[in-house]
């Protein structure tokens, strides 16, 4: 069952120095109870895509066109108030930086209670009781409700953020690099926590730049480059049988602890999205580039069931 369907979404930032095409014609579907990871370098538009789903693209960004359908409802054409009531209840979001994603002046219990007060119209006393239970659910003790964010560690704060996002058991949890600011041990426990919610039936849209991290627990991986979706497939397809030269490059940049393979980096830098390269956006950095690459954009084709790639190497008969 499809839970969220993003189709042909375009999100542009209208800056003074030009239009930044952060997300350009990206389509992605998320099924129920599925963990899908969006992987890409900094600035490839993966976070913008996540913000787009919850309609919080910061100005001067704008969603230009496309459609986002969640449980049969079109999110982008939805009335603002109606959409607000869905946020937090049907869609939860966890942000990258746990240091700044909680209000520094209010106790974490109060911030947790807010969700119940907003969506279930509880009074604060009742909501605070639930807040304590919720903290236990994410592995903190009940008495933490009376702590201020600065009294908690980064991992604990991220647990609080997750508790807030998951308080009302949304069907979809969007996690925008939730572990980037944390060390690897804490990172692992946070990933376990997110996975525990997936086991209870929540779908996860996981944004990360860490392909290894994504490969650990995802069902499917979407690889983005310069605002485009370049490859999409399930874990085995992406890890064992990557097709797009960019995905191959990403995988080669991860050290192999047991094999003889050397680490190789992708030369060059990601392009300026105000003036993206013509044709395939990856062609200036691509080792395999040939004639059509700089001329025309490759279509996203399905090369095996469920495995999509956008590269001229796999287009039969060429351009």
């Amino acid at each position, binding site marked *: 069952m499809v839970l969220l369907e993003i189709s042909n979404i375009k999100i542009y930032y209208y800056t003074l120095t030009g239009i930044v095409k952060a997300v350009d014609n990206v389509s992605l579907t998320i099924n129920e109870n599925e963990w899908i990871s969006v992987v890409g370098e900094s600035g490839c538009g993966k976070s913008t895509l996540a913000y787009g789903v*919850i309609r*919080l693209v*910061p100005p001067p960004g704008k969603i230009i066109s496309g459609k986002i359908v969640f449980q049969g409802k079109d999110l982008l054409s939805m009335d603002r*108030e109606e959409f*607000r*009531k*869905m*946020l*937090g*209840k049907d869609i*939860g*979001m966890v*942000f990258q*930086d746990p240091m*700044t*994603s*909680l*209000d*520094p*002046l*209010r106790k974490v219990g109060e911030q947790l209670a*807010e*969700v119940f007060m*907003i*969506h279930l119209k509880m009074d604060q006393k009742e909501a605070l009781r639930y807040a304590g239970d919720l903290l236990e659910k994410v592995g903190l003790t009940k008495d933490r409700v009376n702590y201020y964010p600065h009294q908690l560690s980064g991992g604990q704060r991220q647990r609080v*953020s997750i508790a*807030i*996002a998951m*308080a009302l058991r949304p069907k979809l949890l969007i996690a925008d690099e939730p572990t980037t600011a944390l060390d690897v041990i804490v990172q692992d426990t946070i990933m376990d926590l997110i996975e525990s919610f997936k086991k209870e039936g929540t779908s996860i849209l996981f944004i990360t730049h860490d392909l290894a991290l994504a490969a650990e627990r995802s069902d499917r991986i979407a690889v983005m480059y310069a605002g485009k979706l370049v490859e999409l497939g399930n874990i085995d397809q992406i890890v064992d049988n990557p097709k797009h030269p960019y995905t191959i490059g990403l995988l080669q940049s991860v050290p192999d602890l047991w094999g003889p393979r050397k680490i190789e980096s992708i030369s060059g830098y990601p392009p300026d999205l105000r003036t993206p390269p013509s044709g395939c956006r990856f062609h200036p950095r691509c080792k395999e580039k040939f004639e059509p690459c700089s001329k025309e954009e490759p279509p996203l084709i399905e090369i095996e069931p469920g495995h999509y790639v956008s590269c001229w190497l796999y287009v039969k008969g060429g351009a």
Partner: protein
Amino acid sequence: MYLKKALNMLRSVIKTYLLTRAPGVWMLRVGVGIVLLFVFMAILAPWISPYDPTKRVADPFLSPSWEYPMGTNRIGQDVFSRIIWGSRIVLYVVFFATALSMAIGIPLGLISGYYGGKLDRVLSMVMDSMYAFPALILAIAIAAVLGPSPSNTAIAIAFVYVPTYFRMIRGQTLSIKSSLYVDAARALGAPDNTIMGRYILPNLAHTVLVVFTLSVTDAILTEAGLSYLGLSVTVPTPDWGYDLRAGQPFLLDGKWWLVFFPGLMVMLLAMGFALIGEALSERISLAQTR
């Protein structure tokens, strides 16, 4: 229960702000001391003032002595008693004025900064034009229209300080609005009024405190100026600014106490608030750069 909560809050404020070794804390202590002195003076006026401030109690123009610590004025009223009672008028006007300008400036600044757009542009333009006007002249004009009375003086002063609050609050709202925890609040479905009231407003407290102490200082001087010009109180109400003016013609005759003491009081009270404001803004900007 609320009383207990308030007391606890007061205790923690005292502890964090007054009983520390932070640099510049002496300014805060001295400032708070001076302001509290005047507040108690105003509250206890009926008990501590030796004479009725509106009655003739002795010969005119007596110089300071043990019996009349600050001398007597042209009509033979005790200057010391008038100073004590005068603190009531000053504090009343100043606090009423700042409360009023806060009550208008803070919500407008918050709404303007939060929603932005056309409303923000119009409000900012109105406030800027108010701000561009010389404060004292504007206050004189308003006081002249409304007629001389302490409450009207307060309204005139409030009008002058609305743009100050508006600008500071708007600016802070703009910066807080773009912080991650406000995004997070939106992502959990918080409606606009919840975001403004519970997430942004409490974080503006520091700014309000600093603007408050700084604008109070100005307000004291403006109040004194207005009553000096005869636009505040009516005779025989004791008021520092008015007494200053009443004593001024006799200054050249060597009757210095008529002008010196009211002037000193205005200066002291203004300095008290200025010290608090200075110390707080230093502390808070320290806290922000850290």
